[in-house]
């Protein structure tokens, strides 16, 4: 991390993963303690793990293997493969299972999910060398990244991107700050709409954030939720500097910290069903 952090006082700090060796225990701890974890990696450093072959095919699963092979540019393929490996390793750590036993599937809006394991929501983002994965056991999660130096001109995009309240906040700022704030809002909006599984199909002028990253707010700046969302923006440094925003939801069910797949089938229910089937005789 480069030290930049806005909002996110209740969020866990992003964890750098140098390679497939982890430290994955920190992911499990973060999910247990905070309810969520955000991990990031430089995909170039993971290259040895994504050499095409039977091993990678097993790790990616059939569907993502097909997607991998359909990608033409080597760096796009490798980044894609590393992002899926990062999801599998991180989720595997939280669920206490081997990474290649998970099925990463996609909802109609494109949101990735772990088929059959809904104790954990996931989100993915990548820019250039950076790959980021968010995991949350309490509700939805969205992550989004941009190069910190990317220039977005306020005059060109504010109509499509900003609420009335945000325009009031940004309009008076001096130049470099204005662009930086605009970029921060952009990643927050992307993260929030990705958490809802909709990406850019959601109108960006319909919800907003304040200077401290609180949201979502109505277009005129009033709260549009009762505090079930937390947002944070971080600076990440991998040679290049990146901005990364997290949107983290809490559905308020107060779930137990246990996300392990091995314990999810209730012994009483399972036992009762097995008991009755056994009494019905062989063949089962």
């Amino acid at each position, binding site marked *: 991390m480069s030290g930049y952090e806005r909002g996110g006082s209740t969020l866990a700090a992003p964890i750098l993963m140098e390679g497939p060796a982890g430290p994955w225990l920190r992911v499990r701890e973060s999910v247990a303690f905070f309810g969520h974890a955000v991990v990031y990696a430089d995909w170039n450093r993971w290259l040895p793990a994504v050499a095409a072959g039977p091993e990678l095919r097993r790790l990616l699963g059939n569907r993502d293997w097909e997607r991998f092979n359909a990608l033409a540019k080597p760096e796009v393929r490798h980044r894609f493969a590393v992002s899926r490996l990062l999801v599998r390793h991180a989720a595997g750590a939280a669920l206490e299972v081997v990474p290649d036993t998970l099925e990463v599937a996609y909802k109609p809006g494109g949101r990735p999910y772990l088929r059959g394991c809904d104790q954990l929501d996931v989100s993915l983002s990548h820019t250039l060398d950076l790959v980021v994965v968010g995991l949350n056991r309490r509700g939805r999660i969205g992550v989004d990244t941009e190069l910190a130096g990317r220039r977005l001109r306020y005059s060109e995009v504010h109509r499509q991107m900003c609420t009335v309240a945000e325009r009031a906040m940004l309009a008076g700022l001096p130049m470099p700050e204005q662009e930086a704030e605009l970029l921060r809002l952009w990643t927050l909006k992307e993260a929030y709409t990705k958490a809802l599984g909709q990406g850019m199909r959601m109108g960006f002028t319909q919800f907003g954030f304040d200077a401290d990253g609180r949201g979502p707010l109505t277009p005129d700046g009033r709260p549009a939720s009762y505090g079930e969302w937390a947002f944070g923006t971080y600076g990440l440094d991998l040679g290049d500097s990146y901005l990364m925003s997290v949107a983290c939801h809490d559905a308020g069910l107060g779930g137990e910290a246990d996300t392990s797949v091995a314990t*999810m089938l209730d012994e009483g229910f399972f036992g009762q069903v097995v008991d009755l089937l056994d009494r019905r005789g062989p063949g089962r």
Partner: protein
Amino acid sequence: MRRRIEELERAFGDPCDGANPLGMAALAEADRRNELPAAGERALDAADFASEFVPVALGGRLDRADVLARVLRPVFRRDVALGFGYGITSLFAASAVWAAGTEQQRGRTARTLLGGGRLSIVHHSLAHGNAMWRGELVARRTENGYVLNGRKDAVLNAERSAGYVVYARTEPGRGPRSHSVLLLDARERPPAGLRVLPRQLTTGMRGCRFAGLELTDRHLPPDSVVGRPGDGTQLALRTFQLNRALVSSVVLGAGDTALRSAVAAVTAEGAKGPGKRQRQVLAGVFADLLWCDAMATVVLRSLHVLPDSAHLGAAAVKYLVPDLVREDLEELGTVLGASDSLRQSGLSYVHKLLRDLPAAGLGHLGTAACQAVLLPQLPGLARDSWGVAEEPPPSLFRAGPSMPPLEMGRLAVAGGTDFLAASLNGALPRLGGDAGEAGPYREVLVRLTESLIAELQLLRREFGAMPAGDRAVLARPEACALADRYAHVAAAGAVLGFWTRQDGTDPFLADPAWLVLALSRLGGRLGLKLPALPPDCVDRVFGEVVARYRSGRAYDLHAGLLAGSGGVGTGR
């Protein structure tokens, strides 16, 4: 029944009318204050709504499960919290008594509900439990009854219930017979050994009153036990079948209102009209609501018609539907995202539902509880039922005037045959017959059905190779992913069974466009390679979406008249 539904519609009035004390705006305001809408509770009192939860034989109106779901929908169309907080949880509590209570217990429970009293259910603790399911009460058997101790963190209506139906631990360990159902009268004064803890505010269903219960050496007489001691887990698995199917059906009412608000927003005067993507979203959500309704309805009827096998469908429908409705709401948010006031009120209603639905569906806990029922059975079904079992009787899909009674005590909790998988296999030959339509639709329909059957065959191979009943093997991500696939295939069986067995009197339902769209969305969720939709498919479904909006008819299989938009008059 239609009259009962229309009376409720009239009592609640047009949800989109800003001046309606039971409209969306007023409901959102009550939600903001963490209250149930008082006017809503009064309207339900006036409609003698609690009698819907009491069997006819005991003086109530509960006769058919599928009818009950339809009568509940007008309430859930307005407010999920009101539906739960007013009463559906009284039914969830009472259903153990309907299933296994003595004559005396049944009579007393019926009198309590018919007299306006509420019942709370005090759940036992379950794997991956959330606040509502964490902790449990322990009952020790004595010479003259039971002594109840322990603390439960969150019980709905704890403060205002006339009684509690407690799933208490009566044996150590967690086995098939470790729990028993006990009745606890809350009206006894002084309330010896019973303390209701302060109310707990919740993120979802904010108006519902949850509070903890603390029991200290509370004595219960011997006739407090429902069924036999040790029957608790089995009674939960019996009665949950009704709860699961009902919840899946009633949340479709909430989806209806959200879809209606989105249609109102894009068709309003001055709106620029729906674009291609918006038509796709609106038609797609409608197709989802229809297949969900088909599946929920078939499962509700199976409680009457196939009591040996209903448990499978009940677990599958509950596994799929509440989460799917939540995703559809998120999708509708993209259509509602515009700044005029109509869209804003629709959007805040969707936001409220997005808070309420996880609480109603129980999130991961609900999923895991369904997986715990499905997974131990799928290996055996793969070997003995899939591809072998006979198709279910047509009465499952097309209800006649008479239906076997709902006998909760007769519901099996394991075994039976998989009637939804059998419906999927059985539908294919009928698609070529008189139920189908020539041209591109039939071809696409056949191809979609074939790929879903191929998916079932794949599941048959995978599960067929697994041992049944081995928790270590089945509690793995691969098995959980396959169970997820199974639930989608079962849904396809339900909707195809419904479509091929309908009587054809409703021209829209007889048209294959919505079915093709529904199966295509199901297939997409399975990651299948799908044929392209016929060119006018989305527009044919979208046309009905708009027509039903304009004539004020429900977004479900019955298309009944609703209050507002040209439907039944509000009478206000």
